[in-house]
């Protein structure tokens, strides 16, 4: 009995990055309780529904960024791809295009960014920071140019089905945005943890040289990770478009950094090789709960920013301290 429970415990923590996930998961629970005490309406059905809908887009871009971070790279183009997706889809819909055709075309445009990112980083060996800084700026430019440097008009009644699908509608009592993000999370979590590509994403983030010598296709794997990131960003752009019913050029501004924050709070290492998507869920949730909870508690935006910034630093700091303790043990010489 004892050995069985021990192995259960061991297996849980043997999963990559589970340590930090458990820590911040605990933090999340504490946070919810505190906000619930400060303002009991925090747990009201309406607020919870809203909260989940707030978390969903952060989770989606977090998934994308996590994929890229685990390969040991970074994607700065996320926010701009969100903007691009929002503007391209909205422009096409205002021109009277069928919403679903518009969605498909938007998706193709966004995925091009992912391919370019992957090739620049893995094939041309540009530093990911520089490569995606470039595509970030270009994608933002594209977002501005599609409607001649104006935000679009309202996408109109014909697009009601689009707006309901991505934001306003509910399925089984849950907002569609939440459903979409859960479904995508399940798919991407499966791909990352159960498939060969997922394994290779961890491997190249952990030791690119060893992976190359083991026959892992670095270019293909890196590009796939960037594709996931662009795909998720695209979906978030569509959600934003559905929310406001128009295309805004600065949609998604700074989202790439929110995505880094959600990933990193959830235990994804910016050095690569480490992290699990359940962590990203918790990271995104902490982000959303803080925004929502502090707003409920009447804290001004400035205070919210300060608190969230501190949380990012503290959550990673705890992990560094815990891990350096472990490292100290490991470096002991074997008898």
């Amino acid at each position: 009995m004892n050995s069985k429970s021990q192995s259960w415990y061991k297996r849980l923590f043997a999963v990559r990055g589970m340590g930090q996930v458990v820590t911040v998961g605990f933090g999340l629970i504490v946070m919810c309780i505190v906000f619930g005490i400060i303002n009991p309406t925090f747990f009201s059905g309406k607020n919870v529904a809203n909260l989940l809908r707030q978390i969903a887009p952060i989770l989606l871009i977090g998934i994308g960024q996590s994929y890229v971070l685990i390969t040991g790279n970074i994607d700065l183009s996320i926010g701009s791809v969100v903007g691009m997706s929002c503007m391209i889809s909205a422009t096409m819909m205002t021109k009277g295009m069928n919403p679903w055709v518009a969605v498909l075309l938007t998706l193709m445009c966004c995925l091009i960014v992912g391919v370019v990112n992957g090739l620049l980083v893995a094939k041309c060996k540009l530093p990911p920071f520089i490569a995606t800084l470039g595509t970030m700026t270009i994608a933002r430019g594209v977002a501005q140019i599609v409607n001649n440097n104006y935000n679009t008009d309202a996408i109109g009644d014909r697009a009601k089905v689009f707006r309901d699908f991505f934001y306003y509608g509910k399925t089984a009592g849950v907002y569609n945005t939440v459903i979409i993000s859960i479904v995508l999370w399940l798919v991407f979590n499966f791909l990352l943890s159960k498939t060969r590509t997922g394994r290779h994403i961890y491997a190249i983030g952990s030791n690119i040289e060893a992976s190359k010598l083991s026959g892992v296709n670095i270019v293909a794997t890196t590009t796939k990770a960037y594709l996931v990131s662009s795909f998720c960003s695209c979906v978030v752009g569509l959600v934003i478009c559905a929310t406001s019913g128009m295309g805004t050029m600065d949609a998604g501004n700074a989202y790439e950094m929110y995505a880094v924050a959600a990933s990193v709070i959830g235990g994804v290492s910016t050095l690569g090789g480490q992290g699990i998507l359940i962590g990203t869920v918790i990271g995104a949730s902490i982000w959303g709960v803080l925004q929502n909870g502090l707003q409920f508690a009447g804290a001004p935006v400035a205070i919210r920013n300060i608190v969230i910034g501190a949380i990012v630093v503290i959550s990673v700091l705890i992990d560094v301290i815990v891990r350096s303790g472990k490292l100290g043990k490991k470096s002991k010489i074997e008898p």
Partner: protein
Amino acid sequence: MQEDIVRMQNIIKTFPGVKALDDVSFYLKSGEVMALLGENGAGKSTLVKILSGVYPRDGGTIEVFGDNIREMTTQKAKDLGIAIIHQELNMCQHLTVAENIFLGRERTKGMILSEKEMNKAAAEILSRMNIELDPEELVGNLAVSKQQMVEIAKALSMNARVLIMDEPTSALTSKEITDLFTIIKKLKKEGCGIVYISHRLEELKHIVDRVTIMRDGRFITSMDFDQKQMDEIISHMVGREIKQKFPRVSCPKGKKILEVRNLNAGHMVRDINLELNEGEIVGIAGLMGAGRTETTRAIFGADPKESGQVFLDGKEVIIHKVEDSIKAGIVLAPEDRKKDGLCTKLSIRDNIALPNLDMLCGKLGIVNRKKEREMTEKTVVSLKIKLPNAEVEAGSLSGGNQQKVVVGKWLARNSRVVIFDEPTRGIDVAAKVEIYNLMNELKQKGIGVLFVSSEMPEVLGISDRIIVMCDGKITGEMMTAEATQDLILKYATQFESKIS
């Protein structure tokens, strides 16, 4: 008669500025263990990297199992059943043992990884090797020796027919080495050809059938292994004639400058005791990984010490960090000039001033430009550094002149002891002589010179006294007059006997 499974003929490989392999031929039969021997830099690793497709060759032919291989790639090598265990560990620390073993060859059911199947297969391989390891353990949590065993398990899992092991035992314990040898013998029986590279000559008798000896990128000889011929093997390994001139200046030996007592720092620096006198150059010889660099770094305070005392001119100096050591007058010209010795993107003036800013700055911390220029000029003139002007990037100088800048920055501050770590690596013969002259000048000025070198002729030619290290310990000490290459190599391979 066994067939040759690998025939490498007339292999040539040139790296920028160096001919790493010059007309090397190498044959391997099935079911034999071939030891590939030679000193550091003899080209052993380059040769096996060409065989395993890591480097392309510049000339020569490779035949594997009778097929002429025009272009060898890592993938091609793998398909042919050539597996290599690299000297540096190549493991993904964040993946489990089983995940590492099957990296790049994952087993799947449809698109889903067959985690259980791989764990089971990994467990089988590990138990076949007699290693107690949980296949689901993260490799990052394992000791280096265990990681090495995983690397070997990975090679075995590929059903290798040619297995190359580059220094596989350097991180292993005696039990693990015994297990490894058992595995090697088993593989041999199964008809696998094994290339075994090791500096530990005393291991050879347990497993090796034949030896191939290389020196300076050239093939020297191939012969059946016989323990009685050990001396002959060693003389083949070191047998080069010393062509270079080593300028030697004799000085009367003066009083003791530096004394290190019972220095310990990690497992590469164990119980080091050494002395350094005025008017002598002390060379530290040994093989790669003997702990020489680590010892100099520990003395200099670049790495933390566990215990030990350092005395300078008879007084104990407490060195916790590099600043303490510089202040006391012990300085280090590190092994890797570009990485540790110079800020290659900064000017020569900046580089020389960097460790001396305390002397160059006024009270407000503003650098006194005039003093800085004077210091640079003095250093450049006294060391005869050839440069267009002191404002050019340090990285643009030739290797020899870069080395002079590395040393020059320390000489501006009246140091008492200068430690050189591989000062002549990668620089041409003429520049080497200039560095030797510089060391001799320091010696004449009464400054203690300690220098680490892997090139034996250099150690024999320049030092007055030689200390030999092996496995983090000093295994021998001698006056140069009594020293021979064979003697040094004997001490340098005096590993603690790990095999009973």
